[in-house]
């Protein structure tokens, strides 16, 4: 482990954090959008998941 650059965790955290936030946010939005669209065309369905 000699010569290892120490630190840099804040950049790692930022990269992972932003990725999880963006992908997670989009995924939730996609799910909600799909369920809303389904409910609009057939109000009874959409509960099943």
């Amino acid at each position, binding site marked *: 482990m000699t010569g290892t650059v120490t630190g840099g965790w804040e950049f790692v955290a930022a*990269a992972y954090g932003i990725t999880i936030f963006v992908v997670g946010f989009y995924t939730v939005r*996609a799910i909600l959008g799909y369920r809303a669209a*389904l409910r609009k065309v057939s109000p009874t369905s959409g509960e099943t998941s």
Partner: protein
Amino acid sequence: MTGISEVSFAAAETEDQPRIRRGPLPYILLAVGTLVILTGAWIGLFVAPAETFQGNTQRIMYIHVPTAWAAMLALMFAFVSSFAYLFNGKWAWDARLEASIEIGTLLALLLCIQGSIWAKPTWGVWWDWDPRLTTSAVMVFAFAGILALRKFVEEPGRRATWSAVATIVAFIDVPVVYFSVNWWNSLHQTQSTVGNIAPAFRVPLYTSAIGFVILLTGLIMLRARTSEIRLSEEIAPPLEPVASVGGIRS
């Protein structure tokens, strides 16, 4: 002769209607994909050793590279969908096109963000004109333009055809942009490479790559279903095959 003409008319008669698709498959894919990505991230963050020269910042690669692959796959699928739509005119392909462009653009944007976060500790600047980074930035703008085009065209058939055409044109541009930026920048910048990785680094990389592909598939499916449902609301319902009244004469 009569038979032939009937066949040709019957073929032309087919009319495609957007479908409402259900089923749990995308949800399953999303769940599995998320789990696999989290596993890969866990290994990458806490199990894998720090890299010799770049230290901990190298761990960004475990999500950066899979994001890049997923973005490229999404845009490639958009390209395929464009061709499919132009050739068979099925609404499902337009829905897939919309889904994959949207997700591909988002991932390319994410790629730029991750890239500049990685560039700061590595090169000391947020943005170095690295060919990959620059190409993905150009792609963000190119495909965001196509999403804007879709917003501006109200007529569904036109929107589908035009965005398919624009997608083909933009996708063909990707290697050309990469090549030209690479050439343009090659005089004063040596490239970053991710090749020749040791097995200890390979495990987290491939784990999260597989997770990203599974998640991507689920997202595109789900998003394409939404688009198709919206299309079905935009387009007139199928006509009842009525008996023609043209022959009724007084």
